[in-house]
């Protein structure tokens, strides 16, 4: 069953069509990837899904509900979390506080509760802290929870972002180039982590990635786009052998020279 269904999605910036009549589905419990050359519209499509851009046409159905008119925070509440291509951590806050941001939408205490420290408020704070620590432990940086986010090495900052997304208790997690800037070992860890998120937490994963090796290893279904349009869909092998994909990445072979 598809947890996310994108139908004829189109996004225009003035005269430029960034996403053009794009349709695909993400099955529940799967690891699906969206790939394409630079500027193909991957991040634009992602931003439509998470509500940061408003698509001009088409429909996005998540868990049986249309997201076309929802604000980003509402979409997160509905169970779709995201990470950013360029890290967007709260740099001057501690690692734990960063992850606690994810739990925010699962809490409800307001002004009065906060001022009076009601039992409900204390219970909620405790729950937020415990679950955030669990998420940090899951990505393997619980020992760094008191450090300021900006003082962590790059690889660990990435982990904070994943933990923060996990803390929103999502059904579907959108990873925007999770491998960007990671070294070989870190990428290996990333692959294991992605698989663990699916296996242990039962979260569906949808990622954008440049790194073909990573994509081919981890994803069950790959959607290839170019110029905002879908050009291929299938598993790693099917996509790799698809002539249109090869063309998009490597360019077309010149007939004359081939002779």
């Amino acid at each position: 069953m598809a947890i996310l269904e994108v139908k004829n999605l189109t996004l225009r910036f003035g005269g430029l069509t960034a996403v053009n009549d794009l349709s695909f589905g993400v099955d529940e419990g799967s690891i699906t990837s969206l790939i394409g050359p630079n500027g193909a519209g991957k991040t634009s499509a992602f931003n439509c899904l998470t509500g940061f851009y408003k698509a001009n046409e088409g429909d996005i159905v998540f868990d049986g509900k249309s997201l076309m008119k929802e604000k980003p925070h509402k979409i997160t509440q509905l169970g779709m979390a995201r990470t950013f291509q360029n890290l967007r951590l709260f740099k001057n806050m501690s690692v734990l506080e960063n992850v606690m941001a994810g739990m925010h939408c699962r809490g409800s205490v307001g002004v009065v509760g906060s001022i009076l420290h009601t039992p409900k408020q204390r219970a909620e704070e405790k729950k937020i802290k415990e679950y955030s620590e669990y998420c940090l432990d899951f990505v393997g940086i619980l020992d760094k929870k008191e450090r300021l986010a900006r003082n962590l090495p790059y690889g660990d900052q990435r982990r904070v972002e994943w933990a923060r997304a996990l803390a929103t208790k999502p059904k579907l997690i959108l990873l925007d180039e999770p491998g960007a800037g990671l070294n070989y070992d870190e990428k290996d860890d990333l692959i294991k982590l992605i698989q663990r998120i699916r296996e242990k937490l039962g979260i569906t994963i949808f990622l954008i990635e440049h790194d073909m090796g990573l994509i081919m290893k981890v994803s069950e279904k790959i959607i290839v786009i170019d110029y905002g349009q879908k050009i291929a869909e299938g598993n790693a092998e099917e996509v790799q052998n698809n002539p249109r994909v090869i063309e998009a990445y490597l360019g077309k072979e010149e007939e004359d020279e081939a002779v």
Partner: protein
Amino acid sequence: MSVDNPRAREKEFPDVDGAVSKQTWVDRAYELFDNKKIRNSSLLGLAAVVLLIPTFGGNYVMEIFTNAFFYMVLCLGLNIVVGYAGLLDLGYAAFFAVGAYTTGILTAHFGMNFWLTIPFSVLFSAMAGIIIGGPTLRLRSDYLAIVTLGFGEITRITARNLEITGGASGLIGIDRPELFGLRLYQIQHFYYVFFVLVIIAIFVAVRLHHSRLGRAWQYIREDEDAAEAMGIDRVKFKLYAYIIGAVFGGVAGSFFAVKMTAISPQTFLFTQSAMILLAVVLGGMGKIPGMIVGAFVLVIFPEVFRAIGDLRMLFFGVVLLVIMLFRPQGIWPERRS
């Protein structure tokens, strides 16, 4: 499209611990304050001194301290908007005007008991917060500053032109309140009343800072888009900051009205808003002890240098410039490592 390599960016801005090495003795003194024992004993000592001042200080000293307490409440309120949520507000005096006029009108025209006017002043200042916040909070910093500036002026000009607010001459003869049968009219009464008000304001500000709400404001201040992606409704939480800040101003305004017994539009000029904002920035945005220090400096300085006459404001300006040059983050800033 350029390939964005985040790792390269990291090297461009090596903002790792460099700031800590530049620590001055002032910062080390503040760090002592993080120790719970030292903090509690110094706060107790401070409270004792403040409570004893009326026994040896004259009316003049008490008057200045009361004034400082009043500005502390305003600064703590504005700090929620500016320091916690990171929204620039150049019209804060408007909320304080709403509170002062609410109490003034209800006691002078309707003969209402002062203490009963406070809920109204909370209600009306909160409404003012919603009216200014609702339509404008989608704007980003600079535009928001201009709109709040306009709102501050609108409030003052409205007060000057309405009949119920007494027009340009304002309201006079606002009744003094009673507390458990004691009529509050002497300066030492107000000294203690405003001191209690400061304590309550600090309590509320601390509790809010260390709550889900306080964190949400910090997230929004740090990165609005990331906060939104984490499921935080930025418009709603900015509005909360506005409303709570407005209520602080409104309540302070109510007490101001009965202390002065007279209010006029002249009290709520733009300079008033600017002064409060100045104290917040001077003290160190986002930090409660910073607000106390900032408000105190704002009130004390012109008094200490009263002897040099009008020149003192010029001198004050120079001193502020020097402080800002050497401590752009404020006297007692929020610092974390």
